[in-house]
């Protein structure tokens, strides 16, 4: 019964999306005062409620493990802990698509409910675009991926969930990315709305900005969490593999970062109008493209998604419809949008434009590298593009971008000269140059880590310079956001460079009682013993790890065997010290009484994820600051309007 309610709610929501699309389009033709136009906003709000009901129904059938529902039988198991039963609801294709439309419909309801700054025509066009995008996903769900499908014969037991996915980090990882993707779909709808009415104004940028910021925060968190998950769960010791699926999350982030900064220029200075619209379309395209690459199985990836060429075709069709449509609209309309305010090269806008160009170049590098195998396969050549391409080629654009990032926030809007900030420039330059000499002398490092460390330190210093000479308590919240986000980039960069420059790895075969050294750690294998969990058994290697002359720490990495479905995973153990992490992986039997161990010492590796969190925190502060300002502006406008009415009456 609950499953049927969920399905019915989903159909009704789809019907409302049709109404939202029609209402918006008719309003554009017949004027915003028609009866139909009045229906667009309520349709969006009601749709959000219905989809929420549908998603709640899915959570419910997973919570009670209703094995007559096909999706539950395929992906869940009565023995699983409740939290993983619930996360199983979106740990599969159908459920994750339902989560996608849920977030999308709730976002639509929110804009329909509160957004009143833009001209009503632009709003109608935006909501129509939103309804149109949502409609495609409803069609996808209802016609080819019904999550509520019943089995003729209820299953006796579920087929479990991929044991790699039984992890709290992963339970939260896909929803986080989805919030990001969907936030970008809202920015996309705004861009389409503005293209339709050709009204690209600072007010438009201000309406769009919270959504970009929100999406950007979630994408940052999603990428950070996903990278940490890959780091400790896969047991390979790496945090980023340039895998197509990872790139699929990085590309929207790069586009969103560029969009965020260009929307800022548009909001403050009424410049970069067409470019901001383009980025709004590109950012969502990258989300859709990512979804397509992941779900169609068109590229080989370490991520095991349910791959299905038919679904791939469906998403490709949606991609053609939305992105092709938006780009067509862009080609037809963008020429009619005037350029906006001008500015000189040495200005805040100038720096932001350089930053945008660099980010777009990095995006192009990642996009090319990701799609290149697709291109060569058409000519029957198999290639795999990895770090030897991405790292150096990306670096060509990353380091100039970091340099601009250090200097840009010090410049004034519109017109400025470098003469005004010579002291600051000299300081950043000195730190930047002394770094390589110092590190090269001390450690004899490779070029990329060396540049990375120097730029990280210089940027860390530079990121606080915008606060110089200001009363800290009077600095606006969003400026703090910028400072912290930029500082976060420096912190993460320091972690990456340090990881690649100073990591040590040790592969050892030890007897019980044997000892080995890795970096400053000495690790002794005490005993190997079997351990049993709720749905797995494991071999645990009990070890004592000692950092220099410190207290020994007991650790026990495991090699786990799950039985539903049968699969082997490694449970690595991390021991964190302020200056890095010991990473221990239990291997298999070496057949001669010894056990294989894999150990790493990774100095400052944790800074990568702390940096990610700082970047996200910066985004949150910027969002809070912007929303506060918007509310204030709204209050002031309302008061002014009331005064005018009072005066007219009075």
């Amino acid at each position, binding site marked *: 019964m609950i499953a049927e309610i969920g399905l019915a709610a989903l159909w009704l929501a789809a019907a409302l999306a049709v109404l939202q699309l029609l209402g918006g389009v008719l309003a554009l033709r017949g004027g915003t005062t028609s009866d139909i136009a009045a229906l667009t906003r309520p349709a969006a709000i009601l749709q959000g409620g219905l989809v929420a009901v549908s998603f709640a129904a899915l959570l419910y059938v997973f919570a009670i493990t209703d094995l007559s529902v096909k999706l539950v039988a395929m992906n869940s198991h009565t023995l699983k802990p409740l939290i993983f039963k619930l996360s199983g609801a979106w740990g599969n294709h159908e459920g994750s698509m339902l989560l996608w439309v849920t977030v999308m419909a709730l976002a639509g309801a929110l804009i329909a409910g509160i957004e009143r700054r833009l001209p009503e025509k632009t709003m109608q066009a935006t909501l129509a675009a939103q309804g149109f995008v949502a409609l495609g996903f409803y069609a996808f769900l209802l016609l080819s991926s019904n999550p509520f499908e019943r089995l003729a014969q209820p299953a006796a037991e579920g087929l479990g969930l991929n044991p790699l996915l039984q992890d709290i980090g992963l339970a939260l990882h896909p929803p986080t990315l989805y919030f990001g993707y969907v936030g970008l779909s809202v920015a996309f709808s705004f861009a389409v709305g503005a293209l339709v009415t050709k009204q690209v104004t600072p007010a438009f940028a201000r309406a769009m900005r919270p959504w970009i910021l929100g999406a950007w925060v979630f994408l940052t968190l999603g990428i950070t969490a996903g990278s940490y998950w890959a780091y400790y769960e896969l047991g390979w010791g790496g945090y980023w593999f340039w895998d197509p699926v990872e790139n699929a999350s990085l590309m929207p982030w790069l586009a969103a970062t560029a969009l965020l900064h260009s929307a800022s220029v548009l909001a403050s200075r009424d410049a970069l109008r067409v470019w901001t619209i*383009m980025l709004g*379309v*590109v950012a969502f*395209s990258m989300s859709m493209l990512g979804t*397509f690459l992941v779900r*169609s*199985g*068109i590229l*080989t990836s370490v991520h095991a998604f349910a791959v299905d*060429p038919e679904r*791939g*075709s469906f998403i*490709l069709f949606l*991609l*053609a419809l939305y*992105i*092709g449509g938006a*780009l*067509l609209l*862009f*080609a*037809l309309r*963008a*020429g009619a949008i005037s350029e906006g305010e001008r500015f000189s090269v040495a200005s805040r806008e100038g720096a932001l434009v350089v930053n945008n160009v660099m980010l777009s170049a990095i995006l192009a590098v990642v996009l090319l590298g990701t*799609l290149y195998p*697709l*291109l060569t*396969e*058409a000519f029957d050549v*198999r290639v795999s593009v990895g770090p030897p391409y991405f790292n150096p080629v990306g670096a060509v654009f990353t380091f100039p971008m970091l340099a601009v990032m250090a200097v840009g926030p010090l410049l004034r809007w519109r017109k400025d000269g470098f003469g005004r900030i010579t002291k600051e420039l000299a300081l950043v330059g000195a730190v930047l140059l002394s770094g390589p000499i110092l590190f090269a002398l001390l450690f004899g490092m490779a070029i990329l880590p060396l540049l990375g460390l120097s730029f990280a330190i210089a940027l860390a210093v530079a990121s606080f310079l915008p606060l110089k000479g200001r009363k800290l308590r009077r600095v606006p919240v969003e400026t703090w956001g910028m400072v912290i986000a930029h500082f976060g980039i420096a912190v993460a960069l320091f972690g990456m460079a340090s990881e690649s420059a100073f990591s040590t790895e040790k592969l050892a075969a030890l007897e019980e009682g044997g000892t080995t050294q890795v970096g400053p750690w000495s690790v002794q294998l005490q005993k190997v013993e079997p351990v049993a969990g709720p749905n797995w058994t494991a071999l645990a290697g009990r070890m004592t790890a000692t950092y220099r002359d410190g207290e020994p720490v007991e650790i026990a990495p495991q090699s786990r065997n799950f039985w539903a479905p049968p699969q082997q995973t490694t449970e690595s153990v991390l021991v964190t010290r302020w200056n890095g992490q010991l990473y221990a992986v239990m291997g298999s039997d070496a057949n001669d009484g010894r056990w294989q161990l894999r150990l790493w010492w990774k100095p400052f590796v944790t800074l990568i994820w702390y940096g990610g969190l700082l970047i996200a925190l910066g985004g949150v502060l910027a969002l809070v600051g912007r929303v506060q300002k918007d509310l204030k502006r709204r209050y002031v406008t309302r008061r002014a309007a009331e005064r005018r009415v009072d005066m007219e009456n009075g």
Partner: protein
Amino acid sequence: MSWRLWLPFMVFFGFLGLAAYQLSQPKDDEIRSAMVGKELPYFTLPPASLDLPGVDSRYFADGKPKLLNIWASWCLPCIAEAPQLEQLKEEGAEIVGVAIRDKPTDVMRFLSQHGNPYTRIGRDDLSEVQLGIGSSGVPETFVIDGNGIITYQHIGDIRPENVPVLLEELRKAGQ
């Protein structure tokens, strides 16, 4: 209207065409060895059974083309291809085996149950030779010409329809 505004649209449609084409193609996950056309890497493997000698890479450079069969007693498709290997042997092919991660007792039991088409079998306990010649699974069969050059790779078990192909490749390698 500027042509530059159409650029994103056109690039996007280029991508769409490519993606649609690739989706319509059957997905081929086989990974071909990059060693085809190159000389066998140098190796010496101990015997994998008590009654046949082991394998030395120099043995292949005696002027006569041979088949190099990568297999294992624990591999089910290897049982399926056993009759085809027998047939190849009857047609005059010399087949050298490399047993992957195997034990002599298991190898001998397999040969007594499914027949022995091999003249030599080497024991590759760590898959070193297998990886060295670019094989990613069992069974796989390579054609090696009389100078020790790998000329052809067959991935998966040999089906009856593959037998003439392999014989033809052997003939070509002998020229």
